[in-house]
């Protein structure tokens, strides 16, 4: 590809940017601007918001998210096995089964210690 082949792409980009610029300027020029408090609210019709949108999330969401990431990523080992499972035969199945068993034990542990429980009120240490 030479540089000239990129010309249509460049034209496309210029057109897109120009359209955005023209419509933004045009709406500013031609539309009447009479704001009222209702119009400035995030949702003009519907529920009146009570707090800021960028509020903090409770820590328990974070805990579940962290556990999800870890268990999610550990499963990547099974991909490597899945691409070659026929050649690996029973040996591969045994190894993958053992691996899954270990992951399951930790999952049971996490579950029983209450880390997946949504309704725990305190943010203190996990119940023993």
């Amino acid at each position: 590809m030479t540089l000239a082949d990129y010309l249509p792409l460049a034209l496309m980009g210029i057109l897109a940017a120009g359209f955005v610029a023209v419509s933004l300027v045009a709406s500013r020029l031609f539309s009447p601007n009479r704001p009222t408090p209702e119009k400035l609210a995030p949702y003009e019709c519907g529920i009146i918001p009570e707090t800021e949108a960028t509020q903090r999330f409770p820590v328990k969401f974070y805990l579940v998210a962290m556990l999800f990431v870890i268990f999610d990523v550990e499963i990547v080992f099974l991909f490597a096995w899945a691409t070659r499972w026929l050649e690996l035969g029973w040996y591969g199945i045994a190894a993958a089964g053992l691996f899954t068993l270990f992951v399951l034990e930790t999952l049971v542990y996490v579950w029983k210690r209450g880390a997946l429980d949504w309704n725990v009120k305190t943010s203190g240490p996990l119940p023993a």
Partner: protein
Amino acid sequence: MQIDWLAIAPEIVVAVTILGVLAADLVLPRPLKYWTATLAVVGLTLAVVPLILMAASSVETRSLFEGSYVVDDFALVLKGLFLIAGYLVVLMSVSYIESDRYYQGEYYLLLLSSVLGSLVIASARDLIVLFIGVELTTGPLFMLAGWRKGDIRSNEASLKFFILGVLSTAILLWGMAMLYGVSGEVRFDQIRSALADPSPAAQPLVGLAILFVLVGFAFKVSAVPFHFWAPDTYEGAPTPVTAYLSVSSKAAGFVALFVTVYVALRDRVDIWGPGLWALAALSMTIGNLAALRQSNIVRLLAYSSIAQAGFMLVPFAAASVAGEQLAEGLAATVVYLVIYALMNLGAFAVVIQGARRTGTGDIDGWAGLGRIDPRLGVLAAVFFFSLAGIPPLAGWFAKFVMFRAAIAAGSAAATSLAVIAAINAVIALYYYARVAKVVWFDEAPAGAEPATEPPAASLALTLGIAAVATVVVGVFPAVFAVFGEATRVLLASG
């Protein structure tokens, strides 16, 4: 697929113990949680059995997984060290962890995971296996360092350790990726043959890769100038964890470094030899000078362990700048490592008991401890004089082996390193002796009663084992002759 199960039996035993501790922690009610500690002790003891079987068998080298995992005499000696050190740290932890109602099950789970990681390091002859071993060793320690959750100092220790730990991991990995890139292999023996004659274009990349690997490991073993996390982390972490950090995790970092440079990069000793020389000289000098100014006993031991790491490197670094007798240098370094581990664990056990007795970690607060508790005073003197290298304790033999190897290496650079080590040994004597002086010759504070209650049984056992080992090795150093053979095997297999 053919697998020599005996060769990986220690790792399997420890792994099963880990799963067992996890399950036990789940089902045991709170008053019975101490069973997790019992389980950990039993598991670590059982794991020694296959080691003894392998040491007794006639098979010299067991190679698994196409040579990625090798169990030879070198690995056996170090695995024995890691298991014994882990065993002593668990014993040390029992009363400490119980007295503050920490999370017992999780504590032993993480400690055992770290031990498992160091077992893997001793056998790793492959970049991937080595990386997994290193991460398994240090990962749990980030959490253990912050075990006292409510204590801001412990939090800080954990955070600093974590940030520097992951930084060093990233640097190490970058170096490993480069090594893979220039050689096209991850197994150490193949990397070595691929690097024997690299293309001229790859030459600078090889140097860069070795530099990154060296810096990454230098962080892990807290060698100067990559040491600044160590004193803070050691001070803030729970004391048994500090003992583990300064002994097992440091030893594991050293073993990983030695295996990499010795097996995979031995032909490029011209690149890493001077690096090791600088690390050894700087660690000894700066560690000792900083230790002189410390008033807190744990901080003193932190800087002392940095300085000891420098001493440990001396024989191997001297041999590598001289470019010959590498096997002898490595053997001397391993002897020093093992002896250091035993006496330093003893010193930390003394610190735990001494802090409980006096209620303070300030050295001056320990005045007259020898009168209050004579047995503890004697043990303090034994371990601190051993660290200083005074005969007939184990430390002198370590220093003797170190100087002999450094001088045998012969070149001017090696001899100058030996001279630096000699000057530092004298400096070190001053601050070790100061602890003994405070304990025995300073007046006890008014109102101090002679001790009546003995230390917890598990801690007493730790002190006993470490003290017996320190004295026996010092008087009969012949027990260490076997190590010389161990590293020669590594030379042959590499």
